[in-house]
């Protein structure tokens, strides 16, 4: 099991510093998670750290492609507004 980073990533480095497994590495066009190292923080923390600090909605997904921070969950901007500004996606 491993999490993945999507194209929404803005390369802010926040997840790199909090990952307990050093699983996140710099890549172009955005950071990636080494699925051989990622444990989704099981045994280390109660929640995956990358998803707990990531400031960007839709940037981290699980193996099912589900957003750990879905649209509107971090900023509180209502879905209608996100759609109006082209900031909404249904799936990764």
């Amino acid at each position: 099991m491993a999490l993945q980073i999507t194209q929404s990533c803005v390369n802010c480095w926040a997840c790199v510093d909090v990952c307990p497994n050093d699983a996140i590495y710099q890549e172009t066009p955005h950071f990636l998670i080494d699925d051989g190292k990622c444990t989704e923080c099981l045994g280390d923390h109660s929640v995956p750290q990358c998803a707990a600090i990531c400031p960007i909605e839709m940037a981290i997904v699980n193996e099912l492609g589900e957003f750990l921070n879905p649209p509107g969950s971090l900023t509180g901007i209502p879905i209608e507004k996100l759609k109006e500004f082209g900031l909404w996606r249904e799936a990764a």
Partner: protein
Amino acid sequence: MELPVISNNAPAAEGGGCSSSGCGTAPDALGHLPDHIRAKVQDHPCYSEEAHHYFARMHVAVAPACNIQCNYCNRKYDCSNESRPGVVSELLTPDQAIKKVLAVAAEIPQMTVLGIAGPGDPLANPGRTFETFEQLSERAPDIKLCVSTNGLNLPQYVDRIAQHNIDHVTITINCVDPEVGAKIYPWIHWENKRITGVEGARILIEQQQKGLQMLTDRGILVKVNSVLIPGVNDEHLKEVSKIVKAKGAFLHNVMPLIAEPEHGTYYGIMEQPEPTPEQLQDLQDACAGDMAMMRHCRQCRADAVGLLGEDRGDEFTLDKIDVMDVDYEAAMVRRKVVHDEILEKLDAKRGIVKPKAEGIPEGSRPVLMAVAGKNGVVAEHFGHAKEFLIYEASPEGVRFISHRKTELYCGGMDSCGDGDVVEAGATESLLDRNIRVLEGCEVVLCSKVGYEPWAKLEAAGIAPNGEHAMEPIEDAVMAVYKEIAATGKLLPAAESLKVA
């Protein structure tokens, strides 16, 4: 340790609360600080209004990560055309940052300060931040170091800050009440969890206040930045000002919220209003009774280079620095000479008596004037001014109020000569916009004004004045104020007649 707080109320000094040079309160105010503290701020452009005319600073963008979300910030920070906090073009590693600082400090010998301000939170990037400071203090020990932070990680790093001789710290404190904070900060990352709402704000506020106290206890100078968000924290900031003063912060910088929908921030998209210049000034004045207010902040980018109000970052991109041939030792010697010369000039100016409001009848109302100024004198053509300095003249004297940014409507032949035809309509609307920027001002002082803007300014009730070119700003403002006073227009009776 109790740090002395600068007062904005010029003491017994004659002529009220203004100075003869640059803008506003600082030279007087700094005069009241013990020498060791004055020495720390007199060449720091972000701490001293006077210094910002002469000394330059730069920020290096080595700190991308952040541990909180603010409703006025969007973490998609990569943009070259915007000038506002949190925006940078090029992230740097500590090694690249050092190379850049040394190149800039060689090219711009007025440079005294290196700050790390983001684009995230420097203390959420402790490795990159402290490595940069450490390397620079070895290679250019004459450059002052400073850091800006949201305060969440501050208590944990106060000792390292002290150890690296970082003697200027800016904390952004927008509230001291978690209920207010919950409207500004949707979440924080704390002890391996994302904490939302009032609880997140409560922890952040607690850490900020604790960090502030720890810094001032160690004699480190603290400036507090607050973002004025109308309807959210406007009244509350008066309380913030009192509290941070009591904890020993020596300067409070209240900045206007920037909230444009195209920035993609929560406040921008939700159409949260920005404060008007009047709202900002009223609040700064209200807080000024409690502590010294900073009014010359330009809300610069996290990779700004040069004097406040100008940005020379484009001259120092990584590819350009790579081909620069820099003699570091010679540059440091040259900086010393340049810094000493400026300080000598400032010392000489400190003794100059400010223009007095003699002959102004008591009860005369104050007048706001906009000045196209540079280096403390009325210097710029109306159409070339990138910003106007706003001064208030009153029977108390002249004081600096704020700066207001403009859009250039005339770039001269340089920008028009390459085939870009500026349409008449577009030119005109920029001029109209500039005139709107001057709302509330009755006079605009500049070196020259063209015929078209002259007529439009007059029509808008703003008297253009090009008669004081190259004169010290405060002398010019006072001279014009006296002329208006002589017409009797400033007395309440004249006002009521005018209304009738």
